[in-house]
């Protein structure tokens, strides 16, 4: 029972299902197992490291300059993006060639930037979250939420893209309706 409650709470906090963040990237991730693993890993790295960096920005940036938050988050994600690409390049050229498309797709993405703003908003409401560990954990959970949503979509991806679906609704329109129905189910369980 506790597990079910935890699962419902986890789903209810899912950024894709409840806030529609990173939906188009989700369609890319659900396309194949390789895309799912690649995108999920990179998005989770970005949300976790980005959230930890967001803690530093939130603690140092005075309230009256809050309009600059986006600029600092963007610079931070940009630096992470370049570091991750450079690290992959120096570790292995082969890995770099295989993984760079996932890094490009994930860096400046609603799922990543939305996570930073959501975590920051939660910390503003709850002061106990105001430490780097909690920020990073919340970012990691957001990454896992993306993986869960991608798995839910992967389960139906082939059927929603099959010839049995009317041509006009085949693929992305059917997937949007499918995610809407899952989202409605989670909404009713909250």
């Amino acid at each position, binding site marked *: 029972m506790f597990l079910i409650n935890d699962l419902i709470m986890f789903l209810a906090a899912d950024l894709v299902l409840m806030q529609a963040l990173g939906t188009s990237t989700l369609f890319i991730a659900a396309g194949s197992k390789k895309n799912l693993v690649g995108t999920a890993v990179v998005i989770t790295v970005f949300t976790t490291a980005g959230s930890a960096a967001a803690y530093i920005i939130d603690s140092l940036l005075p309230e009256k300059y809050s309009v600059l938050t986006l600029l600092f988050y963007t610079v931070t994600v*940009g630096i992470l993006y370049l570091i991750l690409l450079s690290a992959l390049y120096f570790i292995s050229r082969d890995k770099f060639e295989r993984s760079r498309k996932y890094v490009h797709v994930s860096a400046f993405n609603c799922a990543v930037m939305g996570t930073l703003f959501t975590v920051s908003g939660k910390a503003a409401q709850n002061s106990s979250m105001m430490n780097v560990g909690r920020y990073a954990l919340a970012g990691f959970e957001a990454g896992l939420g993306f993986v869960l949503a991608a798995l839910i979509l992967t389960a139906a991806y082939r059927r929603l893209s099959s010839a049995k679906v009317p041509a006009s609704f085949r693929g992305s*329109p059917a997937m949007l309706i499918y995610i809407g129905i899952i*989202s409605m189910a989670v909404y009713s369980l909250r």
Partner: protein
Amino acid sequence: MNDTRTVFDGITRDNTVLSALMVISPVIVCGNTLKNAVAMIYAFSAITFFSVMISSFVPKRLPYAVKITIYAVISSLIYIPVRLLAQEFYPDSISRIGIYYPLLAVNSLIVFQTEAKFFRMKKLRMTASLFFYIAGFDIVMLITGIVREFLAYGTINSRMTDFDTLISGLAEPFGGFIFLGLFCGIYRRIRSAVMQSRDIRSDGNVSDK
């Protein structure tokens, strides 16, 4: 095969939201009233237009990742005055829209389509094409805002109507997903019907010769 691409593709054949599925989160979550839709249209249009135009001066020789980061930083800078003006014009909508306002500054049209599409065109064509891609988003956002507000709350721009069979779930994100899915399907159906009739007409023209 002839290249039949036109500057109007952003509205008709390659709509930013309905065809390319870009910038769909704000449409799904914030496109539930006309007031929200108008506030989003203002921010998206201003940020995207000025960001892409300024970004077009970034040297092409730079590595791809560096250019993408610079584009995102430019749009984050453009966001600052846009946000300050929005606080004057749309103070209520800003608080309702929340995190989706800053997220407009890192939308795919600025970050990715610049390299893939706009910067491969000549400046004048790029400006016209960009204008219609932005208009493509604006039209979808406007229609979504009006229809969802009408069906969910029975109002249009906060004014009561006689419509009383309300579907309140349409104002929620799940309603946004379902509405956008249906909208995409209808758009595709109309687009394929128009393209088929064009093909038939062009075949007829060829046979006439």
